């Protein structure tokens, strides 16, 4: 069965015997729970108003940032020096900056960068963290001890400092930004996945898979990682705001994307410099950024409650 395995398990009710041994081994572990786990989680999530609100805001924001600028009569880099900075009005809903550029369009275009960096860097962190944690947990013994000791040590390092150095020295390169941020944020993910794999290893369905003679790689990728999906999803959701925060932090120090492109961090930086006369330049970017972080955190917390995952951070 090639469908994502959570769906596959969702289809199989415990009462009808699994058609193939492969699916059977997956089904045995949490026979009762797995059929309804995702279903229940979904229901719990839908009841959590804050989480639904967060998901809604995020969906709306993403759509607006991706498609919004296409429908606007202003370009994000079109200057109107005669106009200069103007307060919100019917022509410019959120006002204009000191170069007369429409703030609303700049916010949407900046959102593409901020959300894009958030997603891509999180993806980098996700891949590194899951593979590292899974290998450590699966290998066990000395390899595990060594790998996790390395993670412990890296936890204690001032990585932000290195990201700053990287950005200063190698230029403000967006791809580098993704990789640098992703490389910083994978540690917690690695710990979580490793703990999951360790506890899954003792489950009967994994034993069954081994008895059936399935390969190690197959057991790891087809049977263990899909079962660790819950915590992975939750921490992915919670990593995105952390990543966006780091990107904005760098942008604020003048190390983010370069003009005329902008991210929310850059806009906040500009706004903070000019807030005394032009309050809207700080209020709207700051507000939108905070709203996004709110939504992501609410959604992440909601997912954690819905999937009933204990905090693995301490």
């Amino acid at each position: 069965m090639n469908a994502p395995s959570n769906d596959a398990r969702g289809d199989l009710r415990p009462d009808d015997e699994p058609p193939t041994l492969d699916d059977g081994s997956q089904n045995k572990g949490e026979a009762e729970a797995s059929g309804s786990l995702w279903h229940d989680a979904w229901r719990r999530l839908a009841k959590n108003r804050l989480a639904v609100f967060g998901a809604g805001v995020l969906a709306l924001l993403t759509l607006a940032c991706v498609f919004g600028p296409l429908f606007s009569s202003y370009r994000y880099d079109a200057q109107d020096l005669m106009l200069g900075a103007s307060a919100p009005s019917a022509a410019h809903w959120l006002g204009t900056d000191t170069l007369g550029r429409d703030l609303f369009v700049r916010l949407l275009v900046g959102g593409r960068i901020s959300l894009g960096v958030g997603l891509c860097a999180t993806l980098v962190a996700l891949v590194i963290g899951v593979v590292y944690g899974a290998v450590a947990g699966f290998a066990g013994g000395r390899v595990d001890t060594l790998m996790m000791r390395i993670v412990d040590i890296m936890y204690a390092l001032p990585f932000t400092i290195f990201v700053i150095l990287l950005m200063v020295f190698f230029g403000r390169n967006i791809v580098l930004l993704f990789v640098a941020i992703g490389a910083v944020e994978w540690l917690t993910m690695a710990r979580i996945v490793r703990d999951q794999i360790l506890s899954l290893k003792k489950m009967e369905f994994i034993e069954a898979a081994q008895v059936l003679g399935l390969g190690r790689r197959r057991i790891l990728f087809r049977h263990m990682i899909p079962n660790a999906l819950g915590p992975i999803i939750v921490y992915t959701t919670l990593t995105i705001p952390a990543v966006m925060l780091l990107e904005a932090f760098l942008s604020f120090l003048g190390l983010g994307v370069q003009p005329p492109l902008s991210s929310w961090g850059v806009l906040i930086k500009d706004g903070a410099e000019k807030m005394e006369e032009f309050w809207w330049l700080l209020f709207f970017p700051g507000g939108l950024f905070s709203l996004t972080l709110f939504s992501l955190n609410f959604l992440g917390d909601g997912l954690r409650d819905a999937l009933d995952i204990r905090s693995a951070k301490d």
Partner: protein
Amino acid sequence: MLPFILRRTLQIAVVLWVIITATFFMIRFVPGGPFTAEKAVTPEILRNLEAHYGLDRPLWQQYLDYMGKLVLHGDLGPSFKYASRSVNEIIADKLPVSLELGALALGVALAVGLPLGLVAAVRRNTLLDYLCSSVAMLGICVPTFVLGPLLVLFFAIKLGWTNASGWYGPGDRVLPALTLGLVYAAYVARLTRGGILEVLGQDYIRTARAKGASAARILWQHALRGGLLPVVSFLGPAIAGILTGSFVIETIFQIPGLGREFVQSAFNRDYTLVLGTVILYATLIVVLNLAVDIAQVWLNPRRKFE
């Protein structure tokens, strides 16, 4: 306990050595140098400058030289940008400012976060709890570089209570410390609430209750010690975050601290100053983490020194 500390100290030494070496070579393989940014210097002057600072010798020799001076004398070398000033002098000049800011911020984080979390835990699922939890969420989602300018706009510019920037009187400490501390206060509050709630559900609390201990006694005598464990383990990352977070705070409030100096030195390619600051911050963070680990075992006897 002693073997634990010894082993960790050894580990710290190795980690610091790796950091120093990696940073040393990384900054050398980067385009540009400390003297290229200046207005064009003639090749002769450039050669003289490089000879003066020993930059003309082979890299490995410079490295050995640097390490030797660092280990034997704690000497971080001369700054390339500030003529005739040593990195040690600059750090001695700027570090106290950053440390004061960090300590104040940590104080704010604990003084605001702990009570909020405690109230939220004790009055669980009441209006008070929701209020505290919402305030905490607000702190997490409004980053320092938004909160800082907003506070300046309101308290300094509109109300005129404090200066918008600078670092002279005690009044200048208020806004920066609040800005940096409130974010961590939010995390502390959340962790306190979670930790206390978890402990309150445990058997020994029920036993205490069955023995007729008062609610206050249960909280202060029994729940607090275990409930604060998550907060203590968070202190390690919090200290690291406060130290690096002060880069932004020092920029917003124009504070003459080491954080601003570090970012500036990276732009200036001031090799020795970059390296010195990285070494200092790394040492601070790693040592403080060790202190947090020791505190954790002390609070929780079940956790052994591994």
